[in-house]
């Protein structure tokens, strides 16, 4: 187990360093001269230009700039914003740092039980109309992109019925539509997997044994079948988080939510690249962390993984 943890950790460090290099290179390759834009009407002021370049660390050789940036990231800083001169990126992000994780976690809290229940139900009614119709809804749920389902839901629930606000952030009602839109695809994805895993588990000998000894069906499902589909489902949490993180870009844009995703997109158009790069790094680091955690947890739960790694 220790060698496994060490190897996975080494892989993570390698990938994250590479991601840092790529992100830094991208930030230097993006179009426009930030200092020139900041100076705008005072473009002749050489002393000011000198001071700004020094403040932003842009007067050093590139390798040194990279080193300064890496040290900053290690301290949880991501440099200064271009748009708001002299303001640290972390301050620009501000409350966004709380909003996006809150959205993603709410969506996940909704998607996991719903998806597992729908998938398990479909498997228990295998090849009957419940199964067919649940699965038809789920494949539609996977197919329709989140901004398209947002269009339908906004029109129906917010405009036609007037039950919910169209957009905005701050009240509980305003979180309902974004969370539903975010949860749709993960729910459908989980349901399809849960159905497959459930069908596999239901065909196992220990389920037949449990039924043969007269155990009530409810206990067979809840105590013997369900726990065994949760373990393989755990490995997909990483993928689901990846989808959710990308979805926040879209959903926050649609519903005008001041989260990390919308900040990153707005920053691209405002040429405030340090902000964009910071969000991309935060998301990627988080994603890598979740995946590592899931792998390790899976290794703890299922000893076969550990043995495989040792070989």
């Amino acid at each position, binding site marked *: 187990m220790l060698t496994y943890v060490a190897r996975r950790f080494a892989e993570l460090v390698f990938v994250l360093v590479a991601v840092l290099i790529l992100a830094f290179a991208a930030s230097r390759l993006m179009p426009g001269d930030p200092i020139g834009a900041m100076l705008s009407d005072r473009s002749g002021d050489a002393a000011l230009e000198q001071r700004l370049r020094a403040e932003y660390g842009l007067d050093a050789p590139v390798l040194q700039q990279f080193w300064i940036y890496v040290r900053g990231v290690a301290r949880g800083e991501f440099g200064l914003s271009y748009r708001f001169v002299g303001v640290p990126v972390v301050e620009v992000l501000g409350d966004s740092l709380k909003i996006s994780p809150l959205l993603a976690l709410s969506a996940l809290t909704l998607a996991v039980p719903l998806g597992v229940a729908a998938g398990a139900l479909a498997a228990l009614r295998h090849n009957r109309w419940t199964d067919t119709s649940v699965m038809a809804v789920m*494949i*539609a749920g996977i*197919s329709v992109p989140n*901004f*398209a389902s947002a*269009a339908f839901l*906004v029109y129906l629930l917010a405009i036609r019925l007037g039950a919910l606000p169209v957009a905005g952030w701050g009240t509980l009602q305003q979180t309902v539509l974004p969370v539903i839109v975010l949860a749709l695809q993960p729910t459908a994805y989980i349901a399809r997997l849960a159905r497959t895993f459930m069908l596999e588990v239901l065909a196992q000998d220990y389920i037949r044994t449990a039924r043969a000894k007269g155990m009530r069906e409810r206990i067979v499902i809840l105590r013997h079948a369900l726990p065994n589909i949760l373990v393989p489902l755990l490995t997909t949490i990483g993928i689901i988080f990846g989808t959710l993180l990308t979805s926040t870009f879209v959903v926050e844009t649609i519903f005008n939510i001041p989260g990390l995703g919308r900040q990153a*997109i707005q920053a691209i158009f405002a040429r405030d690249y340090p902000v964009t790069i910071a969000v991309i790094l935060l998301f*990627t680091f988080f994603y890598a962390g979740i995946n590592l955690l899931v792998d390790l947890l899976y290794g703890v739960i299922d000893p076969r993984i550990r043995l495989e790694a040792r070989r």
Partner: protein
Amino acid sequence: MSAVELASERERDELRRRFLRNRNAVIGGALVGLAVLTAVFATTLAPHSYTETNMLLVWGEPDADHVLGLDSLGRDILSRILVGARVSLGVAASVLALTLAVGTAVGMAAAYFGGWIDTVTMRAADIILAFPELIFAILLAAVLGPGVLTVVLALSTTWWPGVARLARSLVLGLRTEAFVEAAVASGTRPAAIMLRHLLPNIVAPLIVRASIGVGFIITAEATLSFLGLGVQEPTPSWGGMIRDGLTVMRTDPYLAIATSAVLGVTILGFNLLGDGLRDLLDPRARDR
């Protein structure tokens, strides 16, 4: 006619029969056929020019002449949706062609030669796959600036690692088979072994992978365009049209609703067809 050909013909008949029995695959195939035909004949089918503006009819309501109404510049929405099919499927086809070619070549080489080629290519794949879905494409789009070419490049860069990994694992499974060892022993060149002996044996799972990927690629293009990082005006893209439509939902919902429906149904078609093909060609890979 040789016995081998007879057998393969019977096999093909059997495959066709099973395809027609698979309801999802048939519905998906029909939707995909419709989408492809629309994309090919888009400009012929379109009742109006997709760029022609009419400032007197801005956000015009649907009528007999403009079935789905007009957009913010007085352009016919139906015509723009039809031409949008060409943009959407065109991008998807380009990305698919590029990623399949590059991914298969890289994956096969990595598995066949092993050593540093394997290490370098697979570590590169690891790095790209470390970014959450589409985030790397968004980063690339920000560097390259928006446009059709950017979308194709960004999505291809994000997609080849998956194909390469699949091709690699398939070839690794075949490398110790007798027919490969026989080819190596008889002095066949590596390129010939890969093209003539290995490639035909990994085509089916690659096709399944590709057909399942189309839906994701169309979604990804629409997402980038929705965020303003993809296809730019005046070229119609479904993602961009939905974004425009969402800003005026209260007064003019037609643009967003109609485009969303077409986009959703198109992706559904590709996903149904992909699922069907997977059940048919690669029964072991179900739902993984």
